């Protein structure tokens, strides 16, 4: 397989597996485990296969264009260090899958577990293999997201939800900081390509933006790795199922932070800022975590604080700014992953087989599970740094580094002592873990009778413990080449000489190790009495509950402050919002004039056409009249708006826009009918009753009037200023020149709509269809206000007249009243239909087209409804607007797709003319077919909207209180 295939399949495989796992049946524990195991195994094999390409500084790369204009490419990149992490992620992932198969109970919904697990593994591999900073952050956030889902797996427990939320809040906030930091870093380097960033270390460190970038990136890394003062989320995350903890807190999630530190070590490390921030944070975490771990009463809690402490150690090593320390850090990453994963699994086994993880209740388990006990003891010894185990080696390297002088400051000089002290603490908690669980008198009253776990549940622990031993005894032969490969990838040619031997002779580091072992035993002995007291947490510190502080901060920021800000600045009143909106628009318009002047060219011809002036006198009167009457005289206002629309329409035809004039005129008709239909459901408003013109209201109106005047005169001025100067050259030229020669139509406006900008039109008719469906959906469950339910007054009067002798059926007045117009309207229908078709077909060359024809057709249909009434029409005609919408959309889109058949881009049109009998020369552009789609859709959409509203008048409506069960007929299917 080529490099590209290897890297791509490694990235995609877990996600694909996750997708499959999600859809397996809920009780398919075995299939899920097999699937996940095979995925993890394949990923492991793929990673192993990469080894020979990454030794001695080799780098595998796969690059695909992503956003080339922004210089962003999707890059998968594997070097020795990424390889090491990929091995940990896939290898330990495989073991955890095997373990989880036995750990998860049959009641747990396993598809969710394995699906999230595999997705998390994929996200982790994405972080490790990212060759682009932005891509790295993306996968980084993805790990946060899936860890949230995994930690909260048992989401019926409040603790799980809280723990998951806290982990997400802390790490995702860090992730956002990281993104900002990466953006700065990319800006400094001029590229987001990891290789270029790593090669630009000098440039970055000397740049003015180094410190902000560093702090932001460190916020990301330190939150992820649970470093002080962000350590508090990790113990809360222990509510996760133990396989999750074993995976997240040994080899993956928290290691992502130190991965990033090591990854960017060549680019960012080597400055005092790095030493102080990273080093101090690591040191404090290292000591504090170890100290706190001693006092935990929960097995997993103890391991959680120990994890925090060990991550602190790695951070400290990476922060010391020396290559040798960095090598030790990378080495400890491997070692910690092995022994911590096995210890978490061991704790899980104890929990699984005894029913509790409380150290106070556990005792003497050695008798019941000797093999597990032995395994846990070896792993715990590795954690404590006992010789002949892997933990000892990296800790010795660490001790040696603390002795080596750096800058001679006080911190530097006391570092060996502090390190030894923290070493003692780790010995003490390791000892406590083993001694109180496995030794002493047999435990009584455990929820379950303890026994050895199933064979294959223990197997992963065995394998990891053997690894601890083998690495501890013959490091040079086992982990040596791997470590060198990984360290070389980080440090490059600067890789220092180091010796992995178990025995270096009687040296100071050895003395420190011995002191740590003896001191740790002593501390445990001294604290034993206190610990048996059964109090959770260390003295004094336990009163400082970090999660409470966290929650209080969260409540203050996201609830109190946000609420205060909302009360201060927000409003729920639409009028205020609109006032602000209009005001902002005015300010924005004036802003662009600031310091300049609105150059109005007064030399333009002041030709005043009296007819045009008269026309607009009418138009302006209509507009102002509508504005005045809209509150109390809705019908009058509606008619006046129609007048203004008519003036607009005449203006269009006057000023050489026949298509617009036709459209405006027709839409005016339809809009008027629409609003007339709506008027019936609006409340009666009688002038004088509620016009208590108080001072405040008057002031408000005055303000609005001023705003309206300013807006109106501003737009006036702007329009005049533009019109008075010559037109700049625009793309309009292109359309005029090519409308006939390439679009095959002489009506340029129509050619633009259906040909040049056909894609826009497709989008617009889609919107039209969606709006119609939305209207239809809203009206299906329409409940009118209670005072609008009764039939309107006029209908009541008519019905009363009909009911009076001589008796006539209700509605007769209406039909009699409109008898002759109704006949004419019914007779008009076929003619209007023909007119619509005529407008449609000629649209390409003369004013007309799909939109205009569609509205014409709708008007015809409307007339039919007005003349005969809904029941009369629908007894004779199947009106199915929803189908028309679908057909129109399919036709328009299908015409576009048709171009593909002739290997042209979407919506390429074809134009020709044909000689037809009788009709003569007719255009046959494929755009006509597209226009037909527009036509059908416009008819469907408009008819659906109008009919849905019209149907409300004959529906029987339930009052909000009375629950009738009448199902009203729906417009769409009648």
């Amino acid at each position, binding site marked *: 397989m080529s490099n590209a295939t290897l890297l791509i399949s490694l990235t995609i495989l877990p996600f694909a597996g996750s997708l499959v796992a999600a859809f397996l049946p809920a009780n398919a524990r075995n299939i899920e485990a097999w699937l996940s195991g095979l995925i993890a195994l394949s990923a492991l094999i793929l990673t192993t296969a990469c080894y020979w390409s990454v030794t001695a500084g080799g780098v595998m790369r796969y690059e695909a264009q992503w956003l080339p204009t922004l210089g962003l490419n999707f890059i998968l990149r594997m070097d020795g260090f990424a390889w090491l992490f990929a091995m940990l992620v896939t290898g330990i992932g495989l073991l955890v899958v095997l373990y989880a198969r036995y750990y998860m109970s049959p009641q747990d919904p396993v598809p969710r577990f394995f699906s999230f697990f595999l997705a998390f593994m994929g996200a982790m591999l994405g972080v490790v293999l990212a060759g682009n900073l932005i891509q790295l952050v993306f996968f980084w956030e993805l790990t946060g997201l899936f860890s949230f889902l995994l930690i909260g797996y048992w989401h019926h427990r409040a603790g799980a939800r809280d723990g998951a939320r806290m982990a997400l809040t802390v790490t995702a906030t860090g992730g956002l900081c990281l993104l900002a930091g990466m953006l700065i870093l990319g800006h400094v380097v001029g590229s987001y390509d990891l290789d270029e960033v790593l090669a630009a270390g000098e440039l970055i460190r000397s740049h003015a933006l180094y410190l902000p970038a560093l702090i932001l990136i460190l916020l990301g890394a330190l939150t992820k790795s649970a470093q002080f003062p962000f350590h508090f989320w990790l113990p809360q995350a222990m509510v996760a199922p133990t396989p999750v903890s074993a995976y997240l807190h040994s080899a993956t999630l928290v290691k992502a932070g130190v991965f990033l530190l090591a990854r960017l070590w060549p680019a960012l490390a080597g400055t005092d800022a790095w030493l102080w921030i990273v080093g101090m944070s690591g040191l404090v975490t290292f000591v504090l975590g170890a100290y706190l771990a001693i006092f935990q009463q929960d097995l997993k809690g103890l391991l959680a604080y120990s994890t925090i402490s060990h991550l602190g150690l790695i951070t400290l090593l990476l922060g010391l700014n020396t290559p040798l320390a960095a090598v030790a850090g990378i080495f400890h990453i491997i070692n910690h992953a092995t022994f911590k994963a096995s210890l978490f699994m061991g704790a899980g086994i104890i929990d699984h087989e005894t029913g509790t993880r409380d150290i106070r209740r556990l005792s003497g388990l050695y008798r019941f599970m000797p093999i597990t006990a032995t395994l846990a003891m070896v792993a715990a010894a590795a954690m404590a740094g006992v010789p002949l185990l892997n933990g000892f080696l990296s800790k010795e390297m660490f001790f040696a580094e603390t002795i080596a002088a750096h800058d001679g400051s006080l911190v530097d000089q006391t570092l060996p002592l502090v390190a030894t002290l923290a070493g003692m603490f780790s010995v003490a908690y390791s000892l406590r873990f083993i001694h109180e669980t496995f030794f002493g008198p047999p435990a009584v009253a455990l929820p379950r009778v303890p026994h050895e776990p199933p064979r294959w549940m223990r197997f992963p622990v065995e394998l990891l413990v053997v690894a601890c031993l083998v690495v501890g005894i013959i490091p040079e032969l086992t982990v040596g080449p791997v470590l060198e490969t990984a360290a070389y990838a980080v440090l490059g040619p600067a890789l220092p000489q180091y010796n992995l031997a178990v025995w270096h002779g009687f040296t100071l580091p050895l003395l420190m190790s011995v002191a740590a072992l003896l001191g740790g035993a002593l501390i445990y002995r001294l604290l034993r009495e206190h610990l048996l007291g059964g109090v959770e947490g260390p003295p004094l510190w336990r009163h400082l509950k970090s999660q409470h502080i966290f929650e209080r901060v969260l409540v203050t920021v996201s609830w109190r402050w946000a609420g205060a800000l909302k009360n201060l600045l927000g409003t729920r009143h*639409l009028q205020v919002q609109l006032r602000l909106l209009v005001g902002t628009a005015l300010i924005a318009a004036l802003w662009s004039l600031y310091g300049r002047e609105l150059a109005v060219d007064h030399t333009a011809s002041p*030709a005043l056409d009296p007819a*045009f002036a008269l026309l*607009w006198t009418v*138009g302006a009167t209509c*507009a102002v009249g*509508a*504005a005045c009457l*809209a509150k109390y005289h809705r019908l009058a206002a509606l008619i006046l708006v129609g007048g*203004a*629309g008519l003036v*607009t329409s005449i203006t269009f035809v006057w*000023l*050489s*826009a026949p*298509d*617009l004039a036709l*459209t405006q005129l027709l839409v005016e008709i339809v*809009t008027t009918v629409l*609003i007339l239909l*709506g008027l019936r459901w609006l409340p009666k408003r009688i002038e004088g009753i509620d016009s208590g013109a*108080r001072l405040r*209201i008057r002031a408000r109106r005055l303000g*609005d*009037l001023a*705003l309206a005047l300013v*807006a*109106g*005169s501003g*737009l*006036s001025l*702007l*329009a005049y200023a533009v*019109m*008075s100067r010559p*037109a700049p050259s*625009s793309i*309009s030229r292109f359309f*005029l*020149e090519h*409308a*006939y020669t390439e679009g095959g139509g*002489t009506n*340029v*406006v129509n050619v*633009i*709509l259906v040909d040049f*900008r056909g894609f826009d039109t497709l989008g*617009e008719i889609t919107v*039209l269809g969606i*709006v119609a469906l*939305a*209207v239809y959906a*809203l*009206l299906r469950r*329409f*409940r*009118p206000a209670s005072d*609008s339910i009764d039939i309107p007054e006029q209908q009541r009067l008519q019905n009363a007249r009909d009911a009076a002798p001589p008796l006539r059926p209700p509605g007769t007045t209406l039909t009699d009243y409109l008898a002759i117009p109704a006949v004419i309207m019914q007779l008009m229908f076929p003619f209007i239909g023909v007119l619509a078709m005529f407008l449609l077909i000629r649209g390409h060359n003369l004013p007309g087209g799909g939109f205009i024809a569609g509205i014409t057709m709708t008007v015809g249909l409307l007339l039919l409804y007005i003349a005969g009434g809904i029941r009369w029409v629908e007894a004779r005609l199947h009106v199915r607007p929803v189908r028309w919408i679908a057909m129109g959309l399919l036709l328009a889109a299908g015409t576009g797709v048709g171009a593909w058949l002739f290997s042209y881009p979407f919506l390429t049109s074809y134009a020709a003319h044909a000689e037809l009998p009788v009709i003569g020369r007719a255009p046959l552009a494929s755009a006509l077919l597209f226009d037909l789609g527009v036509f059908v859709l416009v008819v469907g959409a408009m008819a659906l909207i109008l009919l*849905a509203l019209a149907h409300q008048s004959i529906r029987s409506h339930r009052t909000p209180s009375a629950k009738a069960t009448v199902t009203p007929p729906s417009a769409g299917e009648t």
Partner: protein
Amino acid sequence: MEIILALGIGVLAGSGVWLLLRPRTFQVIIGLTLLSYAVNLFIFAMGRLRTGAPAILEVDRSGDLTHYADPLPQALILTAIVISFATTALFLVVLLVARGLTGTDHVDGAERES
């Protein structure tokens, strides 16, 4: 010509904005309609005013801006007119449904206390 149309646009926009700021939903609908006329005419004016020169070409000829009105703003407005019908319809229905639910035709869904 220009000054008349500019004044007309101003009056339409002013009336529209005034109605937009009113408390009753019907007023807002009418305001939006008036405002959309104003904006359509404003966009139309960007192509400059021509009389007797509709953008309808002669057969087998390509046109130019000295003989024909600018077709681009026209194409933009044509769809805008249809879409503004759709939004008016949607808004009308939303306000009818909202009135059914809240019992008032105030834009806030509740009468002002003051």
